[in-house]
C-alpha cells in the first residue's frame, strides 16, 4: 500500500491550480480530484489535462467517490461562505479538511508553530489563517518563545495583481483573522494586522514587517537566534522566504522585515502571498500523512 494519502482540491482557481502543481511533487500527498462548479472553467480543464479526475457538480458530485477512491484529505480553496457545508459533508466521511478560506471554523494552523500538535490531535479541520498570517506569525512565535510579547503587529504588503476578488471584497476578514491568530498562535497578548495593496509595475514581491513589543528589555542575542532558526523552518516549505532586515531592537520594540518570493508554479513569483498559503496547506497535509505512516495517528476507519 502506498504511503501517500489521496487528496481533493475544491476550487479550481489560481490557488487550487498552484496547489495541484505543488502536489504532483509531494512524497506524501497524491492529487486525486479537482472539484468545481462550472464544467467550462479553465481550472477544471487544466486539472483534466494534468490527468486528475474532476467534477463540476461541487462537493456533492465528489461524495460518491470518496470511499471508493480512498480520498483522505480535502483542501478548500473556495470561499468562507460555502466552507462550513463542504467541511461538514467531508468530515462525515472521514476526510480531513484543510481550510484555505477565511472561514476559520477549525483551529488556526501555522506549520512551524503548531502543526505537529494539530496532527497528533488528528484535528479534522484546520484553518490556514491568511497569507499575511502565514508569513509573519512564525516570527511573532519566535520572539514569544524567548520573551513575553505584549503586542504583536504585522504589516503585509502585496501586489495589486496578487490580491484576488475574495480578499478585496472582504478585506476586514484579513485584518480580523490575522490579528486573532497573532494572539492565538503567535502568542502575543494583543495582535494587530494591517494590509496594503500596491499596484506598482512590475509587481512588487510580497513583503511583511513584524513589530513585537516585549515585556521588559528584549534579550537581543536569544531573539536573533530564534528568528534565524524560524526563518530556516519556514524556508523548508517556502524556499523564497527571506529575512531582509532585522531583527532590529529599539527599546522594547523588536522589528523584523521579510520578503516572500513564490516558487512560480502556477502563480508568478511575486505572489509569494499566494504561494505561502498553498505551500503551508500542502505542508500541513504532508504532516498528517507522515504521522499516519509512522502510526502516530490512526486515520478514520473505512470498511
Amino acid at each position, binding site marked *: 500500500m502506498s504511503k501517500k494519502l489521496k487528496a481533493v482540491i475544491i476550487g479550481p482557481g489560481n490557488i487550487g491550480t498552484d496547489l495541484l502543481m505543488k502536489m504532483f511533487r509531494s512524497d506524501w500527498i497524491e492529487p486525486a480530484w479537482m472539484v468545481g462548479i462550472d464544467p467550462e472553467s479553465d481550472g477544471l480543464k487544466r486539472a483534466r489535462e494534468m490527468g486528475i479526475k474532476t467534477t463540476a457538480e461541487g462537493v456533492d458530485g465528489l461524495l460518491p467517490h470518496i470511499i471508493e477512491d480512498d480520498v483522505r484529505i480535502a483542501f478548500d480553496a473556495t470561499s468562507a461562505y460555502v466552507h462550513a457545508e463542504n467541511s461538514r459533508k467531508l468530515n462525515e466521511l472521514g476526510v480531513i479538511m484543510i481550510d484555505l478560506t477565511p472561514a476559520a471554523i477549525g483551529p488556526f494552523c501555522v506549520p512551524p508553530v503548531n502543526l505537529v500538535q494539530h496532527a497528533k490531535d488528528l484535528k479534522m479541520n484546520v484553518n490556514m489563517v491568511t497569507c499575511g498570517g502565514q508569513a509573519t506569525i512564525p516570527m511573532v512565535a519566535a520572539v514569544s518563545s524567548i520573551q513575553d510579547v505584549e*503586542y504583536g*503587529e504585522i*504589516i503585509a*504588503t502585496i501586489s*495589486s495583481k496578487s*490580491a484576488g*476578488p475574495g480578499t*478585496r*471584497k*472582504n*478585506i*476586514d476578514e*484579513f*485584518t*480580523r483573522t490575522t490579528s486573532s491568530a497573532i494572539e492565538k498562535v503567535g502568542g502575543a497578548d494583543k495582535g*494587530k494586522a*494591517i*494590509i*496594503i*495593496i*500596491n*499596484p*506598482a*509595475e512590475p509587481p*512588487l514581491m510580497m*513583503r511583511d*514587517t513584524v*513589530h513585537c*513589543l516585549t515585556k521588559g528589555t528584549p534579550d537581543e542575542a536569544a531573539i536573533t537566534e530564534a528568528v534565524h532558526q524560524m526563518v530556516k523552518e519556514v524556508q523548508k516549505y517556502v524556499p523564497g522566504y527571506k529575512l*531582509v*532586515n*532585522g531583527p*532590529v531592537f529599539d527599546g522594547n*520594540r523588536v*522589528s523584523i*522585515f521579510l520578503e516572500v518570493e513564490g516558487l512560480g508554479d502556477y502563480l508568478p513569483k511575486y505572489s509569494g502571498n499566494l504561494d505561502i498559503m498553498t505551500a503551508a496547506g500542502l505542508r500541513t497535509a504532508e504532516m498528517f500523512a507522515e504521522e499516519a505512516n509512522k502510526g502516530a495517528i490512526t486515520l478514520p476507519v473505512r470498511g
Partner: protein
Amino acid sequence: MNLKDKKVILHDMSLRDGMHAKRHQISLDQMVDVATGLDEAGMPLIEVTHGDGLGGTSVNYGFPAHSDEEYLTAVIPKMKKAKVSALLLPGIGTVDHLRMAKDLGVNTIRVATHCTEADVSEQHIGLAAKLGMDTVGFLMMGHMASPEKILEQARLMESYGANCIYCTDSAGYMLPDEITTKFQLLRAELNSNTELGFHGHHNMGMAIANSLAAIDAGAVRIDGSVAGLGAGAGNTPLEVLVAVLDRMSANHGIDLYKIMDVAEDLVVPMMDQPIRVDRDALTLGYAGVYSSFLLFAQRAESKYGIMARDLLVELGRRGTVGGQEDMIEDLALTMAKEKGLI
C-alpha cells in the same frame, strides 16, 4: 478664473492630517479648543481621528495620545453647528470602527483607498451608506493614475453608495492643469448629484492654486487645515484659502478673522516644528511620495545616517503608496548596510 458665488464647502483637516505633524499627540483640550474655534468661525465639517484614520493606532503609524473614541467623545458634543467626519482606510480600520464612529455621532465617513484599489472599499462604503451617513469615497495619491483610471475607480465607489468622491493629492505632486483635467472628467461623467472633493498638500507650494483649479472644474468640497497643520508641508492653509475665496466672491460661509485667529492663536503655538516647504517636504512633492512619510524619513535619517531626501526619492522610484511607512526603516537599513554604516 471666475468663482463668483460658487458654493464651496470647506473641510478642516488640522485635527486629523495635523495628527501626522504632531506625531498623533494632540491633547483632548487642544482638539476641543481648535474644533470649538472652527465651529465659531463657521467651518461646516471637521475631521477628527488618528492621522491614518480610525484604527490607525499602531507601531507602524504611531500610537496616539488618545484613542479615536476619546477624541470623538470629547469633540462631538461641543459642536454647535459643525459636523464631524472620520477617515477610514480599509486594510487598517474595519467596519467595527465605522459603527463605533457612527454611534459616537460622526456625520461623515470618508473611506480612503489608493487611487487604483477602490474595490477594497465596498464593505465600508456600503455600510456607511446603509447607515444613512454622508459617505465619501476618497481616492488617495491621485497623481499615480490616469484621468480615465480615476474615473473608473470613482464609479466603483459611487456604485457602492458614496455620495461624494475625492481625488486626493496625497503627495502634493499635482499641478493645476492635472487637477483641471481630472476634475473636469469626473464632473462630466459621474452622476450629477455626486459631489466632488479635493484634498491637497502644499509640498510644491501649489495647494491654493490646485484648490482653485478643482473648484473651477466642479469640486464643491475642499479640504484644508488651519495654519496648514498637516503631513508634509501641510494641507491647504484654510485661512489663506478663505481670504482668496473672499477676494473672488466665492460662497464659503467662513468668518475670515475668526479663522485667522484660530490659526495664529491656537494652532501655530501647538506646532512641534514649523510646517513649511523644507528640503524634505519639497522632495515629497517632487518625487510624488505620500506626505506622512516625512517625519518617518527624518527619524530614519537621524538613526541610520541616510539622508531623508535620498530615502524619499527611492521610495518614490519604487512606487510606494500610502500606508507603507514600514518600508522607510526597512529601506534605511538596506541603504545603510550597502554604505557600510551598520
